[in-house]
């Protein structure tokens, strides 16, 4: 609870810091310290809440999953700000506002992870989304950024409408907004067309936010048009936060009627994996490839929603962190190179060994090679799906798609190491940057060797 308050306070503080501080570097330092303070607040919350579920006015409640997730996502934000602080400040003039908006996004993420009331979920998703519309269009010189912002806003507003419609219908069927109350859980079990349609609409709205097919079409354009540091934020931290809300709502509240919506989710998984992976193969720009890769990875994370068991919760947490760390590493490389097509990466291995090696570790993790965190993420989610029992067919399909995904990830590895070329960078990475890249890669490998570090039992 403290973390939610602190995140808003830091956001407001940062908003006005632009008036006080003349230099951008001072704002950056303030933002980093703010994120570290927020991490401390979350850790405090985790210690406080670890004993039992703590509920506030039947609106929000913290259990072991949401508290752990909040700590993890804040940790990722600290790393994100450290790696991208200069890039964020370089987007435009109003750097203090960009940082403030990032903290507002975090506030939304906390609400999503801890809601017990459908209205809080709605509020959380809106607080998470609106700053993104602004950030997507923050590069005012670039027409593609405008396009991304407008597109995202229109599509986002549309999906918000669908979400609201779903919530209304579910409310109509159950007569309660509180998704953990007995009345709600009893009412949802009695078969009712109203609640089915409501659940379906909510699922589609969530699918939109996590860019799952068939409502993923906005993703490539928005990710490609937005400034790269903002894309990195949207593809990782925002996406995994929405996933936590998704799994929470569907497992804890709609879990008893899983057979109703599991079919829908399984169709989504198949379509998302297929579209994401196949289209990613044909991309020439690495940034666009990462957009499609994020769709494909979302398809894998949907397995956690699909399989109703404890393994899927752990799997989702691990997968989310693994995916975030690895994607941040690749996006860091994308912001560094001048030309972020595959050709622009040629010869990176010779000229910048540290950046190249850490990027390769991130790519291996995204592919799911053992010894990296990505492997255990995939392992847990596949285990969850096999445990589920009736879904071996989809598991085989997912594995086939994972093999295909190695094509576009290894194509980049091949560009970095095996092709002749002169990869040009925007700026030489200094030793501080290199240290961060190495820390990121080391985290990936540590989690790949000891996945038990992130587990909630």
């Amino acid at each position, binding site marked *: 609870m403290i973390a939610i308050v602190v995140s808003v306070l830091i956001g407001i503080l940062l908003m006005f810091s632009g008036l006080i501080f003349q230099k951008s570097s001072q704002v950056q330092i303030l933002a980093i310290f703010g994120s570290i303070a927020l991490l401390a607040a979350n850790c405090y919350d985790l210690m406080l809440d670890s004993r039992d579920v703590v509920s506030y006015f039947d609106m929000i409640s913290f259990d072991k999953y949401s508290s752990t997730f909040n700590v993890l996502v804040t940790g990722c934000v600290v790393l994100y700000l450290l790696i991208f602080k200069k890039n964020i400040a370089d987007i435009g003039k109003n750097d203090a506002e960009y940082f403030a908006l990032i903290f507002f996004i975090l506030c939304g993420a906390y609400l999503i992870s801890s809601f017990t009331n459908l209205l809080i979920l709605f509020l959380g998703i809106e607080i998470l989304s609106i700053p993104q519309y602004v950030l997507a269009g923050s590069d005012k010189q670039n027409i593609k950024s405008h396009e991304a912002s407008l597109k995202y806003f229109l599509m986002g507003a549309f999906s918000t409408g669908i979400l609201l419609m779903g919530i209304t219908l579910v409310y109509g069927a159950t007569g309660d907004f509180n998704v953990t109350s007995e009345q709600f859980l009893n009412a949802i079990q009695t078969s009712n067309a109203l609640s089915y349609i409501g659940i379906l609409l909510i699922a589609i709205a969530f699918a939109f936010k996590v860019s799952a097919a068939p409502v993923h079409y906005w993703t490539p354009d928005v990710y490609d048009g937005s400034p790269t540091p903002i894309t990195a934020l949207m593809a990782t931290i925002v996406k995994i936060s929405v996933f936590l809300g998704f799994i929470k709502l569907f497992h804890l509240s709609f879990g008893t009627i899983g057979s109703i919506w599991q079919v829908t989710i399984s169709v989504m998984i198949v379509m998302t994996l297929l579209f994401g992976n196949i289209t990613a193969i044909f991309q020439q720009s690495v940034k666009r490839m990462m957009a499609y890769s994020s769709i494909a990875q979302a398809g894998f994370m949907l397995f956690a929603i699909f399989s109703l068991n404890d393994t899927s919760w752990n799997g989702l947490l691990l997968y989310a962190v693994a995916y975030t760390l690895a994607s941040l590493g690749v996006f860091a490389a994308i912001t560094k190179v001048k030309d972020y097509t595959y050709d622009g990466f040629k010869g990176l291995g010779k000229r910048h060994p540290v950046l190249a090696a850490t990027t390769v570790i991130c790519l291996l993790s995204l592919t799911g*090679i*053992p*010894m990296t965190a990505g492997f255990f993420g995939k392992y847990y989610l596949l285990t969850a799906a096999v445990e589920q029992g009736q879904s071996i067919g989809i598991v085989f399909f997912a*594995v086939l798609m994972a*093999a295909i995904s*190695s094509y576009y990830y290894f194509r980049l590895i091949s560009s970095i*190491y095996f092709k002749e070329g002169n990869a040009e960078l925007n700026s030489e990475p200094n030793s501080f940057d290199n240290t961060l890249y190495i820390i990121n890669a080391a985290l990936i490998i540590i989690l790949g060797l000891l996945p038990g570090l992130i*587990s909630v039992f």
Partner: protein
Amino acid sequence: MLIILLLLIPFLGGALTLLMPENSARLTAIASSIAILIVAAIICYFYLNNTNIEFISFDRVWIGQLGAHFSIEVKHSLQALMVLLTAITFPFIFLFFINKEPKNKNIFYGLMLLAELGLLGVFISKDALLFYGFWEIALIPVYFLSSLYGGERRVPVTFKFFVYTFAGSLLMLIGIIYLYQHTGPTHSFSLYSFIEAGRSLPLETQSWLFWVLFVAFAIKMPVFPFHTWQPDAYEQSATPVTVVLSALMVKMGLFAVLFWLIPSVTMGAQEWMNVVIFLSVTGIVYASILAIAQSNIKRLVAYSSIAHIGLMCAAIFSQHNLGWQGTLIQMFNHGINIMGMWFLVAVLENRLQTQDMNQMGGVAKVAPKFTIALVLISMSNIALPLTCGFVGEFMMLNGLFSGASSYSTAFTVVACLAVILSAYYTLSMVRKVAYGELKENTKKFNDLTNNEMFIIGLIMFIILALGFYPQWLLNWINII
């Protein structure tokens, strides 16, 4: 505890070598590989005498929640033989190619040692998750090695190899997860619980589970029709890497079938026995005929390797004790043999700058030492009596003949046909290379240097010693 050195030395040696300046890399790498050989020899000694058991096994909890253990041991003659073969191969490669390494020595040696780490890990792990991890770890350094060094088409060819094997291993992962779900009340990845879980499954489940696992291993071996990556990969990789691929990595597939697949999915293996033997035998004939048609010497050896592996795979699935024993012996002998063959091919390629046999000829006149080695190793490749190739092949054919398959006679007849074909293509290779008129570029062919002679001599010694006195290896196997 001693056994942990088998993984620790290549890991530390490999990591150090990668970070080292180029000039000091070679010494570290050779020292580490020899240290590994010594440790492996001690472990095999302990294993053979059945003493100091506590030194050759190690077990710690790795991921408690999953029941995964970091457990490694050498408890089976198959493991001991493979560990010894791996430990021998790497110092041989390093010493043979000394002063002829590809550029960026630190990267070359570092990746080679990491590949050795993965291979040794595969052969000694007793935990399925650990086994899977090492299975992939062995692949990554080899992917980089093959892509960095070799022929012009190496990048796409290696990529094909990678995608094939990666797809196979992901299928294996599903199999592992499925078996894991069916292990006792407290799930575990250990070999014994997997065997128990596998045997408790009904026949229908076993029969699809068999293919999920077998395809992964069949791609690695490779068995027809999963072999299409292999000739290209062997041809395009630099020869030191080709040796690792053909002497060791293909053994991973055979090893996994013998050690993991058949014990746990026994009924499934029996169910599909005839299909697998049929594929293997078809592969033998197919590869032998293609080998006859090759003019590129590396492709010829590659196809001959497919034929040999096919026979081993057929013998494994004959489900006959003699066939299994023959395979065990042959896995070791084939490793030594093919290593010698590749070394000689590397000498040819290095001196003549070509892989085309039509541009070779008359080498016997200028290089007698080389020719003796070539003839001897070729004889072993054909499995002539008194070379080490003979013993294993004889036992395997014998096993195949008396095996459980209902078509065993037909299979054996076709497999024997392949022995004749192998004599044909191997001897015509010897003829094209060593005899006939001297060609333009073979006139200045230098005979083996002392260093090369030393390694080839050792290989020839092993070939002859095991050919004359195979009992030494057979004693290993009887320990089971």
